[in-house]
C-alpha cells in the first residue's frame, strides 16, 4: 500500500470517528447532562429582595457523583 493511501485511510477513519463522537456527545448533552447557562447571582438576589423570585429549596436532586436518591 502506498504512503498516500495510508494517509487517506487514516484521515478517513479520523473523520468517521470524529463525526460519531459529535453525534454521540450531542445526544449526551440533550438527554443526560443538559443544563442552562450560569446565572448572575447578584441579579437573582436583587430580584429575590424585590419579591419577584424565590430561593426555595427544591426536592429531587442529589450532589453530583454521590449516588442515587
Amino acid at each position: 500500500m502506498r504512503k498516500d493511501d495510508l494517509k487517506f485511510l487514516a484521515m478517513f477513519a479520523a473523520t468517521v470517528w470524529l463525526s460519531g463522537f459529535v453525534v454521540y456527545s450531542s445526544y449526551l448533552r440533550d438527554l443526560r447532562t443538559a443544563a442552562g447557562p450560569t446565572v448572575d447571582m447578584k441579579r437573582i438576589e436583587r430580584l429575590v429582595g424585590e419579591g419577584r423570585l424565590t430561593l426555595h429549596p427544591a426536592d429531587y436532586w442529589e450532589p453530583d457523583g454521590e449516588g442515587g436518591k
Partner: protein
Amino acid sequence: MKGGVKCTLCPRECVLGPAQRGDCRVRVNVGGKLVTLVYGKPVSANPYDPIEKKPLFHFLPGTRCFSIATAGCNLHCKFCQNYEISQLNPDDADRVYDLPPDKLVQAALRNGCRSIAYTYSEPIIFFEYVRDTQVLARERGIRNVLVTAGYINEAPLQELNRHADAANIDLKAYSDDYYRTVCAGTLAPVLRNLEISVKDGVWVEMTNLIVPTLNDDMDMIKRMCEWVTERLGPDVPLHFSRFMPLYKLTHLPPTPADTLVKAREVAMAQGLHFVYVGNVDVPGGGDTICPGCKNLLIGRRGYAILALNIKDGKCAACGRAVPGVWK
C-alpha cells in the same frame, strides 16, 4: 463535579455546576444545593378559565378553574402555543404575581373556582409549588388539575398524583424521533407516565396537537390509538387539537379541519369511545356521545355547554355509566 448537583426531577437529569440553571430555567444550583426560583411566583394567574379549555371534557363540566403558570419548561417544542412564558427565564418576566399556596387557594375559593389548574407552561418544573398547593387545596375542597406534557421521573410523578384529581397529558406524537427533533425530549417516559397516572386513579384525558407535515400521518395516529386502547383503555378521552403557526413553526399552515376529522375517525375505528376535535369549529367536534345508545350526553360549542344529559354519572337515556368526574 465539586459543588455540583444533579436534578432528578425529570428525565433530563441536568448536572449543574455552581450558579448554573437547569434546562427548565427555574432550578438553580446555589451553594451546592438546588433551589427553585418560582415558588409562589406565577407569571400567569387566571380565575376565569373554563375547565373545558384545559381541555377536560369529563371533569366537572361547566365549572371554572383557577389557572396558574410560572415561567419555564423542560421541553422546547418548536410549535409551543405558550412560548412567551414557557421559554422565558423567570428573572426576565415583566410581571410576576405573589401567590404562595395559601393565598392561591384563598383566591380560588373567593372566585368560586371548583379546581386549580397547573397549566399553560409546564407544572412539572414548579413541582414544589404545585405539590404544596395541592395539599392545601384538597383540605379546602378544591380539586387539582395538571395540564402537562408528562415529562417527569416516576417518583415525583407519583407524589403529584397522590393529590391530583385530573390531568390532561399531551401525547405529542407516537414517535421518539418527533419527540427528539421537535420537542427536545423522548417518548418513552411520556408513555410510562400515562400508564402510571391512569393506574394511580387520576382522571386522565389526552391531547394530541396535529402539526401539518410533522405528525399528521394517519398510520402513526392509528398506531398511537391502538396503544391508547390497549394500554390505557377505550374510555380515556383523546383531544385532537389544531396547530396554529407560532414560535419556530410559523412557516407551516394551521391544521386543516379535515385532517382533525379524519384523525378522529381513525381513533374511533380503533375503539376509543370519546374523541374530540379542538381549537376549530367542527360541528359535533366537541360533543360527548354515549357509546351505548349514541344519545347526546354533552353538547358543546367552543367552551360553552349547550346540553347536558348525564344524571348521577349515567346516560340520561340508557343508564350506562359515563366515565369521568361529574360532581
